């Protein structure tokens, strides 16, 4: 499925703003992203398996946080940096 990558993570994807990855849950998808782009996972998911506080994920148009969220092959996943900082 298509995964949209925010600018802060494109160092890992060779500058690509959209990549392909597979998974039947969000956790699976992130694990596949880590296999393809080593290092990306720990920047968006903490060591206890939770999405980091300032990262948001949309599956199609639905905001999700649960890592067991089911995914279908035609879904589009968008990873977003929340508006935070200063």
């Amino acid at each position, binding site marked *: 499925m298509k995964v949209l990558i925010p600018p*802060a*993570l494109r160092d890992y994807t060779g500058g690509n703003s959209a990549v392909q990855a597979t998974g039947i849950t969000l956790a699976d998808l992130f694990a596949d992203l880590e296999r393809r782009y*080593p*290092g990306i996972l*720990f*920047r*968006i*998911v*903490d*060591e*206890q*398996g*939770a999405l*980091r506080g*300032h*990262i948001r994920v949309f599956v199609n148009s639905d905001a999700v946080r649960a890592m067991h969220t089911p995914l279908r092959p035609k879904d589009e996943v968008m990873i977003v*940096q*929340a508006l*935070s*900082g*200063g």
Partner: protein
Amino acid sequence: MKQITKQQARIPKPMAGKVSLLVATRKGAFILKSDDTRRTWKTSGPFFLGHIVHHVMLDPRDRRTLLLAARTGHLGPTVFRSIDKGKTWKEARRPPAFPKVPEGQRGRVVDHTFWLTPAHATEPGVWYAGTSPQGLFRSADAGDTWAPVSGFNDHPMYTQWTGGEQDGTPDGPKLHSILVDPRDANHLYIGLSSGGVFESLNRGRDWHPLNAGCLALFRPDPYPEYGHDPHCVRLHPLAPDILYQQNHCGIYRMDRTQGRWERIGTRMPKSVGDIGFPMVLHPRDPDCAWVFPMDGTAVWPRTSPGGKPATYVTRNAGRSWQRQDNGLPQTQGWFTVKRQAMSCDAHQPVGLYFGTTSGEIWASRNEGDKWNCIARHLPHIYAIEAVELAK
């Protein structure tokens, strides 16, 4: 007070030549490089612009490898490594992280890596890292992969020693001041804010508090066994039984053979006090140390007392202190200098450096007698390390 009048190790030859300042800021890292006289400085960077960089450290065993602790406001914490003095960087394959706990339990999460320390000279490639919240991590491959030091992180007293989130600093509770005894790789010290100073005699497998004599005014018992707030702890490389600390509650010195902290800040002027964050030791004189006092009264402004910044130096192990403000603003100078943001080189005379949260770097080529501003308009400075890079 026992004074070190005789050096206990061979006094190293003073450094000569170019000094590099490794500058960690809230918006990236910079390197300032001097000429041989330390009169002119050239700034390179920013490296990792936009990343929150808490520490950049040189490996003194090869003088080429740099480690850099970074995170951003959005992304998780990581460590970057350079083996060519900062020309190219590569991310650690496994940055410091606590172990995953079973489903349903609340596990710890590293918010940021705060402190980096190269291990003993006989352990090339070994490093230690301190994190927020308080965690100790070790790398045996020059910072590429990191493993928790379970002897501290999972110590049965961990929760009591570190307290809760409310006991941490405004930027989060931290493990800092990782010190390695140059005589013995098994002998380590750490500082916890909060928690106090702790010591291990077996390379981190077990730990015990080392806070006797140190005040903790914010506790019901002002002299508890642990729960203190050391801001910066230093060990003298030539006299490794001599420890100094700038604490939340004053300036202290310990002769480890006595095992008790003695408050040496009481000899500071009353109008200035002995609160601050950084502390720097003379590389060849264990009786000589510098501090940068800050206003720790009332609500803790953490700025130079009275808006008049100065360093203070002792050359007799804390029996007396001298003010050093030549070249610094004489009024309306509200500097804040963080615990890692003051450093010295090994020249003769020693060069001193400090960075402010307002992005200025001040340097003295003569041990604090005269100060010059060598950089302005940098981001909020977290840390400065003065080093000699390999040629």
